């Protein structure tokens, strides 16, 4: 019996020739990533457990991106960034990207890719559930809590149960009115928010390999919304080129064997699909945009690790070009690199930034911002009984702030189309 790509990478990292689902193994970790919400408690647990002279197992393998609560006056949130700053100074952490400096990057999952930390065949753990995003690079990446992260910080190792794999194959050519977000929402509707718990979600098929790196990251990013341990796409030349532009680190490309075992295989033809939304209050509450079109909105939101990448803004700008947003619309680039690209990338000679400004959108600084609500002064935070359509990843009660708010999740095309009309709108109306 062959192995899946996830099994092969985990076998390598545990020093075994072969692993099987259900087996517990100890993994050697290549990169540990943390941020301002979970970094300070991780450091505190590490000090408690490893003592005053605690040593980081390998400080070059620790990466810290403050990104969650950055542009806030909340004193405790600011203190958390200060704790990271002091830690980085004391332990001379080169891979620390401080807020308030030129080194500030924004949302960790996108910055990991941009800064060359995503390396095919390697193991990345992060104190954030969306760490699974990096799986778009043919690597194993998953989220853990502070305790597990503190354990890694001191030992470089962590236990993990080898997951069963599920495969999702997308055939056909993706129509121009669909994005990766529609595909992952469709999967969530089919398998629900615990449909992949403790499992690996592997994405395959010509429609997947025709996607840009940004779009692939949208698929793997939301694997956690089905409860998955990791999402993964085998690395191809598109990924190799992206990696080569950013790092000289060695990498290894793994592919699933033809006789690898999957718990389930789902096959889709994208050519017949239509735009989807996840209705309140769960990412698996699937419907077609057509079925909910006309729903009145109070706000539109384009941002986060899921929907704040350059490709997301290119999609949104295509529709917003020459139009005005009918409701308050927030544009939150995931990273500072994406924010810079908004000024460089053009449509008909007009920069994306100008297109959004001309449409009346509010362009905010790069951070996680209102995707997870955040402190009360967070830009774009849901208030009272708002109805919001968003390119983000979760719409559980209260996720974007107010418990009374109703949040629809959709593609950047659907959000942009809806911003223009002020009601939920099928992007095909603009094609």
């Amino acid at each position, binding site marked *: 019996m062959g192995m899946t790509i996830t099994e092969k990478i985990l076998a390598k990292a545990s020093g075994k020739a072969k692993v099987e689902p259900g087996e517990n193994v100890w993994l050697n970790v290549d990169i540990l990533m943390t941020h301002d919400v979970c970094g300070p*408690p991780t450091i505190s*647990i590490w000090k408690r457990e490893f003592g005053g002279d605690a040593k980081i197992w390998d400080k070059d393998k620790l990466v810290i991106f403050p990104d969650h609560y950055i542009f806030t006056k909340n004193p*405790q949130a600011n*203190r958390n960034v200060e704790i990271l700053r002091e830690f980085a100074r004391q332990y001379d952490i080169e891979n620390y990207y401080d807020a308030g400096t030129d080194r500030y990057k924004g949302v960790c999952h996108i910055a990991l890719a941009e800064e060359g930390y995503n390396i095919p065949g390697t193991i990345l753990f992060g*104190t954030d559930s969306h760490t699974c995003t990096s799986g778009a690079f043919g690597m194993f990446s998953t989220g853990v809590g502070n305790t597990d992260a503190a354990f890694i910080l001191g030992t470089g190792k962590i236990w993990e149960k080898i997951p069963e794999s599920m495969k999702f194959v997308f055939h056909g050519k993706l129509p121009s009115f669909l994005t990766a977000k529609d595909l992952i929402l469709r999967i969530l509707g089919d398998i629900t928010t615990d449909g992949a718990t403790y499992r690996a979600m592997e994405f395959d098929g010509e429609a997947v390999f025709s996607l840009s790196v940004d779009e692939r990251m949208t698929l793997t990013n939301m694997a956690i919304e089905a409860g998955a341990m990791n999402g993964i796409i085998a690395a191809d030349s598109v990924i190799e080129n992206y990696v080569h532009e950013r790092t000289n680190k060695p990498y290894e490309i793994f592919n699933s064997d033809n006789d690898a075992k999957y718990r389930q295989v789902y096959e889709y033809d994208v050519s017949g699909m239509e735009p989807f939304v996840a209705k309140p209050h769960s990412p698996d509450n699937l419907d077609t945009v057509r079925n909910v079109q006309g729903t009145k909105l109070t706000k539109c939101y384009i941002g986060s690790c899921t929907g704040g990448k350059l490709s997301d803004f290119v999609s949104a700008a295509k529709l917003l070009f020459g139009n005005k947003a009918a409701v308050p619309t927030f544009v939150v680039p995931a990273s500072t690199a994406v924010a810079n690209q908004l000024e460089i990338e053009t449509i008909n000679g007009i920069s994306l930034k100008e297109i959004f400004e001309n449409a009346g959108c509010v362009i905010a600084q790069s951070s996680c911002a209102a995707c997870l609500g955040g402190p*009360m002064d967070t830009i774009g935070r849901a208030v009272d009984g708002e109805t919001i359509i968003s390119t983000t990843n979760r719409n559980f009660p209260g996720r974007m702030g107010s418990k009374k708010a109703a949040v629809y999740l959709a593609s950047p095309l659907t959000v942009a189309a809806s911003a223009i009309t002020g009601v939920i709108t099928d992007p095909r109306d603009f094609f």
Partner: protein
Amino acid sequence: MDKIIKGKIFVLGDNIDTDQIIPAEHLVYSLSDPEESKNYGKHALSGVPLSKAGLPAGGIPFIKNGSSESEYNIVIAGSNFGCGSSREHAPFALKVAGVKAVIAESYARIFYRNSVDGGFIIPYESIQKINDSISTGDEIEIDLMNNTLKHIESGKSFNLRPLGDILPIIEAGNIFEYARKSGMMG
């Protein structure tokens, strides 16, 4: 490790995500400062819409009058408890509020790991659905030796899934104690 956990239950539904367990705006407090960390208990389960808090009736706040401790020390829930973000603040908040164990049909992976590796609460899985047959405020007794739950008033007993691989970590206290015992840490 306690052999018996006895107490009053707080009943919830399916898919209680970590934003409902501890809303993100509270993730700013220190978890190591004993006084400041009480804020996590104070806001535990405050993200659950009130109509779905304390089933079957609903409308029952888990924490009353700005206290940091709940009168309920066992949470009973449906499937996929703790889905969503990786915040360890979630099982931590339940612990600060006085919760000893959660009994759910299933858990999201990161919440489950955090509960066990951090030694915050015991995440038991029920074999059958139980959150629709007992009520918030009922007294129960969990027998950790025999993996059973006894409903005190009716005397009815339910089987729980044995803790299996995680039992040695729970017995040790947390992942660090476990690693020390098994010689993995100095």
